[in-house]
């Protein structure tokens, strides 16, 4: 059985993470949750994900700092990142886009749009769904 692509969901709010997991439910991916910037770094190093869904306002390092760190790391410089944040200021958006992102969604997020963005970013077959793919902290 082929290995499923891993998606790291980094957000300090458990409710927000569960909404993201709800958006990805049934997609052929494995999700890993992180509740801080450093937890996200550990999850990225350990799991070598195919996609990072990232909040900006998080305990250290915040999302934009983490994005910058990822882009400076040769191993993860091409890791696709979708930002899901309450921040929608021009400065935050411009900064994120400078570092390269696959999408920017403002909270409250449109779960359907996040799902579509994930399918497109990971080049998944939208017709293929799986059951029971777990998530881990």
């Amino acid at each position: 059985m082929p290995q499923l692509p891993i998606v790291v969901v980094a957000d300090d709010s458990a409710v927000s993470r569960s909404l993201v997991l709800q958006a990805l439910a049934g997609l052929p991916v494995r999700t890993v949750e992180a509740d801080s910037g450093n937890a996200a770094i550990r999850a990225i190093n350990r799991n070598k994900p195919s996609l990072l869904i990232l909040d900006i306002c998080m305990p250290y390092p915040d999302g934009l700092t983490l994005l910058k760190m990822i882009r400076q790391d040769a191993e993860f410089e091409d890791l696709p990142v979708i930002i899901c944040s309450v921040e929608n200021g021009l400065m935050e958006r411009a900064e994120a886009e400078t570092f390269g992102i696959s999408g920017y969604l403002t909270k409250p997020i449109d779960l359907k749009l996040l799902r579509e963005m994930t399918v497109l970013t990971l080049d998944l077959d939208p017709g293929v769904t799986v059951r029971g793919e777990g998530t881990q902290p």
Partner: protein
Amino acid sequence: MQEASFPNIELVEGLMVNAMRNVFSTMLSQSVDFKARYSRDKAGIKPFYSLGSKDPLVVGSIGFVGEANGVVYIYMHQDVAFQIASAMTGMAVSEVKGEFEIVKDVIGEVSNMVIGTFKNGICDLGFNCRVTLPTVLRGSQMEVDSVQSASRETFHFEYMKQPIVMDLFIQQNGK
């Protein structure tokens, strides 16, 4: 040089009402009705606990800093917080009653989204600012007083026939 002017209160009210409606319809698939706004210098502002029962209150609080500075407190009775947590998580109200960690997280995130959406509207008007860390308070008969140089506007909403009150403290006109 022209004096900087902050958006008038009707515009601020529109942003606040839209933010509440947007978050409640998107995240909870439920509606919230705007009832009234009161300014600090007008009669009508009363401590939230005098609006209804003496049940414990849950209050989400979050600030915004930058070219506009302020803080918002979102007051609701504990039962309303349970209803919101239930609607957002899909858990039964009876289940969330025993899980205040979940209730706290939901109210913190809903506050974050509402004030974040409001703040983004302020940013779009040219006043760049960022939200601060959300906090959640729980207690009875609490009241927040205004601080120096901040004006206060109180927005009254109704959700499932229960009040939700938003207390906005904001610095404006270069104060």
